[in-house]
């Protein structure tokens, strides 16, 4: 092996150089970021002089936009193409994250500030029965949401999980391909169609026009199953075959291998997927409006009578405001806040479960 055949770029790194050669000093990115935001502020400062209000958000966004090419440029000049690319991607990835935080923070602030107005005891111990104007609460909707979503989860988690197990562990050939295909089709069911379907289905059994909580649950389950299947399938596929083989070689039957090795290994991902699926449907409005209807009173029975849910409550409070409108809007926001808190709690529980079962990876 001779040096002459080495690729150019390798020899381009001069051996005599200290290993620190050609690096931007550690604080450089921060200095550049500060400068970029300074420039952004200057631009908007000039605009402010021209009579516009000084726009902090704009200054920071322009600054961030300036930072990305400038860090790339500086790094390109000092550190070369590859480091520059790395820094560019770091800036972009961080930027993507910050960008996504903007709507989140904006939403959170909106929901919390508006939602706190009616986030009081009455809101949680009253329904809307006989309430017009101010007062009232969403207890009926909270109970309804928990019951309807709970039932939807009870229907779809076993079906979804077992289906993904089938697809990953057993499925070969036609049936598996068919089911994969159908799950794909199922992701395409618009939520409102799911609502129409559930409504039509229960009309057959319980007479025309009936609206019940369970019909809402079925509608949500139709929406939830494909999400559960897809995400669990993805997670199950990530379990290395080595582990399955290790279990088989110990004479463990396939189903026990799945239950005791495959599922625990992927439980973190699966719970995340399930929480996401629950979160996905718990906020559905349109299908519940159609299938479960709307009531102002308490109803604890999934199988009889209309049942309110939080999204429907939010929607009707917003859409059909009476006098004074603020009372309706406040209730709508408070209900939205409640819904988010419920999902937050669910998420926390799922995380605890996941942490408890998660694989303990050392090295």
């Amino acid at each position: 092996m001779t040096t002459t055949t080495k690729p150019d770029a390798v020899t381009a790194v001069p051996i005599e150089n200290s290993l620190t050669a050609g690096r931007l000093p550690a604080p450089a990115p921060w200095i550049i970021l500060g400068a970029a935001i300074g420039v952004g502020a200057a631009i908007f400062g000039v605009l402010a002089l021209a009579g516009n209000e000084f726009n902090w958000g704009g200054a920071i966004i322009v600054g961030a936009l300036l930072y990305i090419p400038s860090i790339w440029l500086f790094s390109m000049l000092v550190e070369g193409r590859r480091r520059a690319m790395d820094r560019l991607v770091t800036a972009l990835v961080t930027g993507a994250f910050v960008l996504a935080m903007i709507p989140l923070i904006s939403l959170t602030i909106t929901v919390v500030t508006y939602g706190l107005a009616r986030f009081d005891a009455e809101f949680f111990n009253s329904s809307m029965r006989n309430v017009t104007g101010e007062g009232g609460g969403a207890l009926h909707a909270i109970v309804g949401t928990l019951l309807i979503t709970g039932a939807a989860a009870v229907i779809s988690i076993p079906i979804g999980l077992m289906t993904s197990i089938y697809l990953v562990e057993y499925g070969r050939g036609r049936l598996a391909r068919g089911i994969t295909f159908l799950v794909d089709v199922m992701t395409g069911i618009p939520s409102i169609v799911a609502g129409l379907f559930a409504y039509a289905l229960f009309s057959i059994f319980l007479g025309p026009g009936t609206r019940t909580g369970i019909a809402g649950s079925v509608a949500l389950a139709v929406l939830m199953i494909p999400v559960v299947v897809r995400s669990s399938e993805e997670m199950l596929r990530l379990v290395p075959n080595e582990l399955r083989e290790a279990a088989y070689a110990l004479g463990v039957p396939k189903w026990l291998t799945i239950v005791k090795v495959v599922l625990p290994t992927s439980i973190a991902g699966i719970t995340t997927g399930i929480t996401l699926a629950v979160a996905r449907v718990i906020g559905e409005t349109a299908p519940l409006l159609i299938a479960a209807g709307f009531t102002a009173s308490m109803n604890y029975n999934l199988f009889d009578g209309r049942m309110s849910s939080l999204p429907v409550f939010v929607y009707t409070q917003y859409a059909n405001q009476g006098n004074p409108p603020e009372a309706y809007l406040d209730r709508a926001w408070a209900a939205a806040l409640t819904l988010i808190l419920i999902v937050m709690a669910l998420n926390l529980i799922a995380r605890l479960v996941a942490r408890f079962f998660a694989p303990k990876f050392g090295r």
Partner: protein
Amino acid sequence: MSKRIEVKDLNVYYSKFLAVEGVSLEIEPRSVTAFIGPSGCGKSTFLRTLNRMHEVIPGARVEGEVLIDGNNLYDADVDPVLVRRQVGMVFQRPNPFPTMSIKENVLAGVKLNNSRISKSDADELLEKSLRGANLWNEVKDRLDRPGSGLSGGQQQRLCIARAIAVSPEVILMDEPCSALDPISTLAIEDLIEEMKQQYTIVIVTHNMQQASRVSDKTAFFNIAGTGKPGNLIEYDDTTTIFSNPSVQATEDYVSGRFG
């Protein structure tokens, strides 16, 4: 009780690719048989057909017969799970269960099968298996730590401990020592020596010394070229294979004058 293994004219496929062709051999109970041969010649593939692990791979299949004490493993109504309980296996790469502690890993074969075992029995089995794999001293203080936190060699010994904990009749080992230091290797070799009183052992190894040290019989596999199937070239007593093989290729291989 150990088992006699008889293989009759076995062809092993990955989908359409014939990986191993026309192997016939007999493995005596209470003996150690070593498989040697160059990389890629199908040793692992063939070994995995002996406890029906081969069919776990999608598209993989087998033609021919493998008889264990006269019963064909590949008969239609044979339960592969029972086969694997009697024919244990240790893999080339250590693969402890990441969700389990060291202790749970060792007892996995017992616990995963939902067998009930008393705590004292479990502890005894645990210690016995770990000692057998020469790992007890290193891990006895951290039995509840995850098994995946161990070094490569420690992990492999953990896998050996796990395999012997279910007391199979036959133990297949696919290069079990390739990640071990000499001391652990020696311990495993001693263990093999000891186990052969009771079990039938088949071991794949790249280490000629190891093959000659531990095995009673040796099978040499070779491959004519890439894409060609592997073949069993010679199968005989280990001493014969290493001192006086009847095929030239074998002699070249064991003496390191190959190719």
